[in-house]
């Protein structure tokens, strides 16, 4: 703990950097993934194609994926955020699609009976009901992104990984912990907050 206390400013700055990269990546991943998830429920033949690609992307080791992107995007935050977005698609697309598909057919029929158009059904019925499941996906990727973002320090994206790499370079365990402990804390905190949101988003009268 000594290092964290004596370098509180630095740890704080790096934590903010870490949070920024992760937050931007998660938001963009949702912006890209949710429409894609909706699309594959409309065009069924796309589902295996999109999910298959997202699955392959998900398995690519993070160091390798960062490395793939450097020639195109250079260093720093850009390749990092893109890599995190690509990783996240599996969870977001799948959960969105599953969320929409599991809405009871009877409910959709009832909505149609009330004269709703497809767009209205999506906005007013399916998406609100799918939201908790989408949120579960957001929670998964947030926790994952917080961890993966540490490695991005090596390609100039900053964040708490800086302390970990530097701690390894000068064999200084306290410094490694000063990087790792806030990362773990961020992950636990994000997991807790998003779990709260997940249950808050569950519409009254549905499930549990």
């Amino acid at each position, binding site marked *: 703990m000594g290092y964290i206390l004596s370098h509180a400013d630095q740890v704080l700055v790096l934590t903010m950097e870490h949070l920024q990269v992760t937050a931007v990546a998660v938001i963009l991943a949702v912006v890209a993934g949710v429409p894609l998830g909706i699309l594959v429920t409309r065009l069924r033949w796309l589902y295996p194609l999109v999910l298959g690609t997202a699955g392959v992307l998900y*398995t690519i080791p993070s160091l390798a994926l960062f*490395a793939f992107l450097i020639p195109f995007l250079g260093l720093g935050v850009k390749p990092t955020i893109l890599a995190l977005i690509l990783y996240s698609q599996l969870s977001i697309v799948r959960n969105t699609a599953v969320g929409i598909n599991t809405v009871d057919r009877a409910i959709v029929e009832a909505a149609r009976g009330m004269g709703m158009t497809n767009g209205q059904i999506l906005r007013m019925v399916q998406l609100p009901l799918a939201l908790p499941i989408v949120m579960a996906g957001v929670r998964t990727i947030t926790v994952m992104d*917080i961890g993966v973002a540490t*490695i991005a320090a090596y390609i100039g994206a900053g964040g708490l990984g800086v302390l970990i790499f530097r701690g390894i370079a000068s064999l200084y365990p306290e410094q490694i912990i000063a990087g790792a402990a806030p990362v773990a804390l961020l992950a636990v905190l994000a997991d807790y907050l998003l779990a709260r949101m997940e249950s808050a988003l569950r519409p009254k009268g549905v499930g549990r």
Partner: protein
Amino acid sequence: MDAFFGYIVREPMVVLQLTGQHIILTLVTVGISIAIALPLGILITRYQRLSFLVIGFSNLGQTIPSLAILGLLIPLLGIGFKPALAALVLRAMLPIVINTYVGIVGIEPSVIEAARGMGMRDRQLLTIVELPLALPVVMAGVRTATVMSISIATLAALIGAGGLGDLIFRGIAMVDGPMLMAGAIPTALLAILADLLLGRMEIGLTPMGIRV
């Protein structure tokens, strides 16, 4: 094409050797992880108190960056294969412990009751009913652990343990695209292949009666 495969074509033996190191590190990791995690996962289904502790610890452990685990083990174990293996096992056993526990606890109580009603003892219950039913979930954990190990093993190149990370780090340092790809492409292929193979096994291991 040269930008992607130039180095692989020029130095196939180097790539092959490092791929071999990568596979060995991953296999030994997964082997040891199963050997530790499976019994531990079973054990904690029998002791509720312990399960809180172990599962909580495992969840927390998964949030600690593997890079940090690697770094923290250096003062204890030095550099090379051993600390890399230790760091990988510490990380890879967590999903297997969790999935073993969840797999067994998630079995319908009525099934267990029925088995007990047939006069099965604890041991028989475990080997004849619980483990076979939990196996697909356990395998899902093994699959996660394997794919993750292949990924984390690239970082082992930072501590002298070799593997395909050697080429990735050298490629990054020298901005040598073909060298970088010679590390990244086989690593990605290994991960994708392992995922596919273990996914098949997961389905194959699901008992006939409960396949969806």
